[in-house]
């Protein structure tokens, strides 16, 4: 049976007004990726959300951008931000204790219920891991509800791999979890890299992770070419389009399906998504 994904499930009052939050912890993940833990000014979790949901995180004086909540606890939410533009560059200048703006949660969430009992195959490239990790962490927290877990993760350089401690020290020791990491090319700065070399899709194909008669669900997040090639590899391996999930990205401003720009046909990624199955995307008029 195909995975059932909820859509248009976020609701809320005053959706465009942010709250002021405080940065409590900053982790330098890579030279240009940092994770930020946020709490409200009185020290509480800014909002409750499901894994995969979005938050509009920014600086009042510079602007705001949409990110997937990359991790959360009862006390905080975390965003993992790559420095690529004006706002993210300013976010990278933040220090612990600084005040930021945050609104959300927006969008739908990973189908944690519908995936119960399934083997999970997470596929990500570069900064695509944080959105996928929100689901992966949920599976690890509810380990008995899910079968075998595979993570296939690639980056162009060793330095670009995010969450290295989890990748190399923690997750490989989780029960029935298999972590596969490749670099796109030999990395002259890290000649000691003994892992695999290869682009994500061909690397994925060498791992021989099949659809298991519909009992394996694939979860993809990466740039346009990674997404396209990995979808093709999975379909070639016999996966059903309904068992391939992805989280989509487009430029967003409002977060609630009104400002117009993140439409995919008549659907808005910020509101109806960001999570869709390939079977759903196939029925949409997609420019993504």
């Amino acid at each position, binding site marked *: 049976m195909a995975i059932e994904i909820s859509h248009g499930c*976020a*609701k809320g*009052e005053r959706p*465009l007004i942010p709250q002021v939050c405080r940065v409590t912890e900053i982790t330098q993940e890579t030279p240009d990726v940092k994770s930020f833990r946020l709490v409200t000014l009185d020290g509480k979790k800014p909002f409750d959300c499901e894994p995969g949901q979005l938050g509009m995180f920014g600086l009042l004086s*510079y602007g705001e951008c949409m990110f997937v909540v990359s991790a959360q606890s009862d006390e905080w939410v975390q965003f993992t931000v790559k420095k690529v533009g004006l706002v993210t560059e300013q976010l990278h200048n933040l220090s612990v204790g600084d005040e930021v703006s945050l609104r959300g949660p927006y969008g739908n969430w990973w189908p944690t219920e519908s995936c119960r009992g399934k083997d999970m195959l997470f596929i990500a490239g570069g900064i695509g891991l944080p959105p996928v990790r929100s689901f992966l962490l949920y599976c690890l927290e509810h380990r008995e509800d899910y079968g075998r877990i595979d993570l296939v993760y690639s980056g162009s350089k060793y330095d670009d791999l995010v969450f290295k401690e989890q990748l190399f020290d923690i997750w490989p020791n989780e029960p029935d979890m298999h972590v596969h990491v490749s670099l796109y090319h030999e990395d002259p700065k890290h000649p000691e890299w003994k892992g695999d070399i290869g682009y994500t899709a061909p690397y994925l194909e060498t791992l021989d992770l099949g659809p298991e008669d519909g009992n394996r669900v694939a979860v993809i997040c990466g740039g346009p070419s990674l997404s396209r090639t990995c979808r093709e590899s999975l379909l070639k391996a016999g996966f059903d389009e309904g068992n391939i999930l992805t989280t989509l*990205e487009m430029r967003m401003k*409002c977060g609630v399906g009104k400002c117009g720009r993140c*439409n995919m046909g*008549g659907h808005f990624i910020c*509101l109806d998504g960001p999570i869709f199955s390939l079977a759903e995307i196939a029925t949409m008029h997609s420019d993504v």
Partner: protein
Amino acid sequence: MLLSKQNLMPLLNSLASDVDVFVPTTIDGVKKFARLADGVEPDFDMINTTMPPKDLLFPQTQKMYHFDVDKNGSYHIHEYDESREQIVFGIRPCDMRSIVCLDEVFLTKGFVDEFYANAREKLLTVSIGCTQAAETCFCTSMGVDPIYAPNADVMLQDTGDAYKVTAQTPKGEAAVSAWSEFLSDGDAEPVNCDVTLKVSMEGVVDKLEGMYDSPIWENLSIKCLNCGTCTYVCPTCHCFDISQENRKKDGVRFRCWDSCMFSEYTAMAGGHNPRPEKLERERNRFMHKLNFFERRYGMSLCVGCGRCVEKCPVALDITRLIDDIGSYEVAPASAE
């Protein structure tokens, strides 16, 4: 009830002493709705304004909140509510239909846009049916009756020397009962309005489903300048940008009209742009008007006002596109 045309200006002046009344007029050569004040001459014979009255609900630039820091350097956010009682007097039925579309966008699907909702709550709509159509008007083809707007609070229909007045909502009934000194009992037959430009929407929505990769979009987009005029004069276009202006740590965050015709509209910080060329943007705009919105909200996002047809500098004409879609032969679906 009837409102004699002699009583129209006295009624308007009386209303304007209490609230802001917006009427069709010409200011600096631009036909638009403006607040009735000294020197503003309403023109209710104008077929339609160049600029739609959507800015009364969705201002071109709208302050949402300002922020500042206190002595301790801590940020504070102060919301704006600049909504106030407004009357739009003389809005045409096509523009009233556009408000049905805007209500769907801003008030449904889980999140209510408070800025729009506040303005909508305080807006009284007094529609005047048309007596003549421009050569670019095609409202009847889009299901709009040029002499009747079902969602107007008050409907005025031209009967010659007087307007037939019908209150259509509780808000409209309250208004009309307050206008009694200007009204007289009676009934008269409204003048009809002949709309000559016609297109057939029959089958267009369904047909577009199979036309995403049709060459029709490239042919259409070749001459487009991506100037965005069509989106600014469109009464239903509602896309907006959010930005801010600040001086050190004090500033204002606002939203302003944006346009899907611009490549920056969808350009992402990482460099990827899902709609990089005119072709994708034109296709998205017209699919949104004629198909996407219909699928999402059950109605067309084109009301047939003809503004984009009139103002496009390269005569890119949605009515011709609709004709072309109608006569386009969709290849049978492949057996994939």
